[in-house]
């Protein structure tokens, strides 16, 4: 009740939305046995390996943990830079 003015002004999200967001991340960690920082580290290492073979812009790469029912899926979207033909 106390937070309704905050909510109307958009300052604080509903507590159930915060609960759901937090749970989403916790469940990913629990199901994969990976902590958030391990996940970050894995992404960074993947980027390094990929960059060794193809030309990429790290800012455009999206590596995500997706949830499909009770399964977790690691997906990656990696735009490749066009090959510049050297003379």
């Amino acid at each position, binding site marked *: 009740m106390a937070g309704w003015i905050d909510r109307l002004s958009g300052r604080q999200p509903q507590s159930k939305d915060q*609960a759901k967001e937090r*749970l989403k991340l916790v469940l990913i960690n629990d199901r994969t046995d990976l902590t958030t920082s391990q996940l970050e580290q894995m992404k960074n290492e993947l980027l390094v390996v990929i960059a060794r073979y193809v030309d990429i812009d790290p800012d455009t790469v999206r590596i995500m943990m997706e949830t499909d029912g009770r399964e977790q899926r690691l997906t990656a979207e990696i735009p490749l830079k066009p090959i510049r033909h050297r003379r």
Partner: protein
Amino acid sequence: MAARIITVTSGKGGVGKTTTTANLAVALAMANQKVVCLDADIGLRNLDVVLGLENRIVYDVVDVVEGRCRVRQAMIRDKRLPELYLIPAAQTRDKSAVSPSDMIRLCEELSSEVDFILIDSPAGIERGFKNALAAADTVLVVTNPEVSAVRDADRIIGLVEAEEKGPAKLILNRMNFGMVKRGDMLAPEDILDLLAIELIGIVPEDEHVLISTNRGMPVALDPTSRAGIAFHNISRRLQGETVPFMDMDEKSSFFSKLGKLFGPGGN
């Protein structure tokens, strides 16, 4: 005919496993099913007090397993209902007194005598949980609309799958629809979205649960209370009926469920 063997579990303690087991047993027995409930929480028995049968215990499940009595002798009959029995847990032993294969043997022996065997699992994911799961053909996971309970439910659902006892079905206990409406409680849709399993019941928060437990009269014995109706609905779903879930509007839900319970085709 072989009995349905249903295990009620949760991971987290205090979410209402024992209350759920007791009330489903009562609701099934009120629907003329022959039911035995088995307390698998050895060392911390409570199904006896929730059912109001604590003064009638002579033998317990460990006595049966260790051969000090026959199964029949450990089955306490609830005199309020035609065919409801309790096999209590031992209070002064620990979980290692019973093994998963003991549970399977015991349930096999009971299976020809009753329609339903309801097993109340202890909290946690160790031996007691494994015991409770061993004989199950259906697993019901009880959770509350709060982060810790939902997280533990997810872990338990995964373990039930790993033991090839899944997919488990979910009971949402202690839903407060007023708080859901204000956005201060995870809604059933949110929890189902996170856990991705089938829902079998929503039990509203209802002070009648505590009051009836104080008296040793499970709330399902009073089929006019909201929680009582919810447990009867779950019991009907377990028997294969399609029963709509309680909606957010407390009053209309209350009266429509009441109407269904006593109306034609109800119960």
